[in-house]
């Protein structure tokens, strides 16, 4: 087990492919919190978020070959799947009704300003400074799309902006974020 604690994520996935359950346990120990945090943020529902966590790690167990270490980190791979799964659930009819009921019970109503504050609080501390490199418009577009579960078309409607503008803001914002993280020595780019 000690070997797995010090193993790379890629080595863990190879061990998972060989049906080593302790390797999956180690991957869970490393990443379940992040997976759960993202899913909870997107779905707003603890039960749904835990269902997503279970789905994500079962997927990793059953199809480890889908992770390609040449294309990115295991963390990014898991979170991409987590977000997609969470957004799917969010857009499902049952999730939408729950969210509407929850919003209706809140006083005052859940304003974008409050949502923005919640988002800020959910961010990893070291990312705050990197995000300051983005314009307000870029941050807002990314926040609504990623944490709000909206398509770029919906974000365009929410912000009363052209769809092309929103696509560009999201793309340029992510580029600035990547550059800022890289300058700060954070992430895979910092190692290259």
């Amino acid at each position, binding site marked *: 087990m000690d070997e797995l604690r010090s193993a790379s994520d890629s080595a863990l996935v190879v061990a998972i492919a060989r049906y080593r359950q302790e390797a999956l346990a180690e991957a869970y120990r490393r990443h379940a919190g992040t997976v759960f945090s*993202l899913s909870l943020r997107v779905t707003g529902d603890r039960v749904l978020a835990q269902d997503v966590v279970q789905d994500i790690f*079962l997927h990793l167990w059953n199809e480890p070959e889908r992770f390609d270490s040449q294309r990115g980190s295991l963390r990014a791979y898991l979170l991409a799947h987590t977000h997609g799964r969470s957004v799917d659930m969010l857009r499902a009819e049952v999730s939408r009704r729950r969210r509407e009921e929850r919003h209706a019970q809140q006083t005052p109503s859940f304003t974008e300003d409050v949502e923005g504050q919640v988002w800020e609080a959910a961010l990893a501390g070291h990312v705050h400074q990197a995000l300051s490199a983005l314009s307000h418009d870029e941050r807002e577009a990314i926040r609504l799309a990623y944490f709000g579960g909206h398509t770029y078309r919906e974000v365009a409607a929410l912000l009363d902006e052209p769809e092309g503008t929103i696509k560009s803001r999201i793309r340029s914002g992510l580029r600035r974020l990547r550059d800022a993280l890289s300058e700060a020595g954070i992430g895979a780019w910092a190692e290259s």
Partner: protein
Amino acid sequence: MGRELTHDEIRELLGAYALDAIPQDEREATARHLAECEECRAEASAHREAVAHLIAEGRQPDTGLWDRLSAALEAPPPTLRLGPVSDTVRRGRTALLTGAAVVIAAAGMVAFFTLKVSDQNRRIEEMANAVEDRTILRAAYTAMTDPAAEQLPLLSPDRSMVVYLVLLPDGHGYLMAGKLRTLPRGRLYQMWALLDDSPVSAALLGRRPDVSPFWVHRPVAGFAITDESAPGARTPSGKPVVIGYLPDADR
């Protein structure tokens, strides 16, 4: 299915794609494009890496979730045991298999190594699945009965041990190495294709090899198996455990 999108249209969508913020039809079109465009694939991966840092790790799922998850995991496939293999006679050659029982190791002990290191993870899973549903066995038997296949014995230096492989014209083949002794942990068998007497790694066989598929780029002069330290070697570190040369003009 909607219209195909141009490369420039896809590029504009890559940021939204990384955030799962595009409609289904555009998502499918983008996925198709990414399968063929390395430039766009790299950008999408970079966006996802950046997005992965937007998540704080402060929240944790309930402590009982792992127990529920582990209970739902599939157990490793059981060891398959087969009856004796009957002799086969093809193209006037003598039978290669003589009544030895063929045991298929659990999927977790089957490894497949190719010259493309980036494919290793996918190959391991392909191998594990193949063993689980006996595809390798069926394929190996089919190959043995193929009149175009070549069968080659690999002998130990003192000729006390022999393992067999069957090689098809397209370079695919199967090694039946159940007679090799089990190696201690940290060691594994590695098979080499002999190309103009220069060995090239053809397969990692694990500690307890059995029926193992492989592929080599032909022409090939022969094959050898060595005992190596895990996870394998770039060149053979010692003398072969078994070796054999193809008799025909493959050289």
